């Protein structure tokens, strides 16, 4: 636990985005990446991959992939924003699907609504080629581990 915590702090401070993803097997499996943008904070990116399809007839990305991508974005966003680098524990995740995920790249951005001593509330938004057409919005509560 301790070793990986120090390692994450090093990764974060060095802005080694890909290394942060490598640490989370599930994020690596989906093919998630992210980077820091000057004024808008972290931008998460899920490149299109045939293995993430949930419906071959439409076709559409699996709702669970969109949800998992957004949840993972929230975890990394929190860890990037907090002093402490202990991994937050998810309490609940609430997602509304507004459009089906077409077979193309998906993006997400997070907003920390409340960062309390023990609980954090994060909102996540996902879109594809058109930034104005949101394909899903989610909100999630996390338990923060007190050092």
């Amino acid at each position: 636990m301790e070793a990986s915590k120090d390692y994450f702090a090093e990764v974060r401070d060095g802005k080694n985005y890909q290394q942060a993803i490598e640490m989370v097997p599930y994020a690596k499996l989906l093919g998630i990446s992210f980077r820091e943008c000057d004024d808008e904070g972290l931008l998460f990116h899920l490149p299109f991959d045939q293995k993430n399809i949930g419906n071959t007839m439409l076709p559409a990305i699996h709702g669970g992939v969109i949800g998992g991508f957004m949840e993972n974005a929230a975890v990394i966003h929190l860890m990037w924003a907090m002093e402490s680098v202990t991994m937050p524990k998810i309490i609940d995740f609430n997602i509304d699907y507004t459009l089906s995920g077409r077979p193309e790249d998906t993006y997400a951005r997070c907003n920390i609504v409340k960062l309390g001593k023990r609980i954090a509330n994060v909102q996540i938004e996902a879109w594809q080629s058109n930034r104005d057409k949101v394909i899903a919005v989610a909100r999630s509560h996390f338990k923060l581990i007190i050092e």
Partner: protein
Amino acid sequence: MTEQITDIGSRKYLIDDPKILNMMVDGFFGNIPHANTLGIEFVSIERSKSCLKIPYKKELAGNPSTGTIHGGVIISIMDSVGGMAVFAALPAIEAIATLDLRVDYMKPAAIGKAVYASAECYKLTNTIAFVRGVAYQDDENDPVATCTAAFMRASSHAVATTEGFK
């Protein structure tokens, strides 16, 4: 031949047709590459209910130091099992789409053990299917996560036909 439903008290269930049931059991994941990516397996299906399982794999871990599976995996299996429960409640084949889904995480899944997910479509209206589900390992009454979801019915005209199954 046109079929007439004369008995008002009973309604048709798509999965009462053995051909459809076999298709659900054998071919459900053929059209869902993501289910294969995660390793989701079919367990059971009955009227308005379904059950799936996902064996433990290191690739599904969310926390690198503990190896616990990622919450996103639970979202995927819940969405899949919920959709299957809706199919198990439908009178005829039609396309469905998840409107919203909420997962409450009760406890981390134990490492190395399969996670089961079962769901029930407890209300079907003309436009919406309401679903609740639970993810567990050893005991359904000691869940890893619970879930509620709403699905939209007839979400696409492209596949909302029974022609292929007559």
